[in-house]
């Protein structure tokens, strides 16, 4: 009997090989990009708008996000990977924007979008925007990615550039801060307990 014959083949061997095999990467073509853009642009814009509080800035950063995304020549592995990648790109651009202006707290106070809604009838929208604007940019990103995008702690850590272990604590603090703001403003929603 040869040495090869002594090696027992696990029934999972084939499955394991198939699982760990890299998914072949396909470069993104125009049609794929268009489909991806139509699916994600709205979500990215909402995220950037809620982060910056300014529609014009959100428009600008949305375009920059997709330019940067295309420049990186993304390969299609799966949609979740791309979605995570583009949110990470958007987060970096938003943080860069805050660093450039260095007035992010002040910039949130009198943005055109908020001013419009102040004059308009949507008081709730205005109040919600103001309450969210009281948070730090990182807290806004954390809460949005966790509660709206349903990102995992690992994905959030990667997107905002912190350690995965820190995300849980940071999220807890961000929630507490937002809860305090909402209570102070009388915006806290009723939670039904089972």
């Amino acid at each position, binding site marked *: 009997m040869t040495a090869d014959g002594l090696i027992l083949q696990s029934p999972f061997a084939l499955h394991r090989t198939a699982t760990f095999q890299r998914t072949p990467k396909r470069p993104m073509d125009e049609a794929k990009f268009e489909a991806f853009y139509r699916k994600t642009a709205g979500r990215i814009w909402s995220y950037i708008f809620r982060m910056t509080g300014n529609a014009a800035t959100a428009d600008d950063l949305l375009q920059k996000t*997709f330019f940067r995304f295309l420049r990186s020549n993304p390969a299609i592995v799966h949609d979740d990977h791309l979605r995570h990648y583009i949110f990470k790109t958007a987060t970096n651009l938003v943080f860069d924007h805050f660093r450039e202006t260095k007035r992010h707290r002040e910039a949130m106070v009198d943005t055109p979008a908020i001013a419009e809604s102040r004059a308009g009838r949507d008081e709730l929208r205005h109040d919600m925007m103001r309450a969210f604007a009281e948070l730090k940019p990182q807290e806004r990103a954390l809460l949005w990615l966790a509660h709206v995008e349903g990102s995992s702690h690992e994905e959030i850590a990667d997107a905002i550039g912190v350690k995965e272990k820190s995300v849980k604590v940071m999220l807890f603090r961000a929630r507490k801060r937002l809860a305090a703001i909402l209570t102070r403003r009388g915006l*806290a929603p009723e939670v039904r307990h089972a």
Partner: protein
Amino acid sequence: MPELDPLEAQIGAWMQQFAALDDRKHGFPDPSALWVKAKLLQTQAAMDRATRPITRVQIAAYVIVAAGWAALLTWKWSALSAWLNSFTPSRIILDAAGAQAATSLSMTFFMALFALASVTVMLAFHTILAEE
């Protein structure tokens, strides 16, 4: 099923309500336009990358030519200044009267001068034509 933390539930509910607000008043840019613009930017970046070595060689050529001129002038500065002074009216009169020139410039110097001048002119033409 794990029990949801009340704070998490409260904030989660609020965030969902907040996310559901529709704030966008106009459409998004056309993806085809974004694609074309991104491709143009990529092409521009590729061109910049491709011409970077040429630019480096050009800068090196400027430095070498400048160093050549500096070396040539330093090497024969005394002879050159004497030669230039010989163009003064008094020196011209003296020379015409038969006085010997103080110094003379070698053939090597003139050859080096010619070579350097040629390279300088070529470099100048290259710069002008490349920019056009």
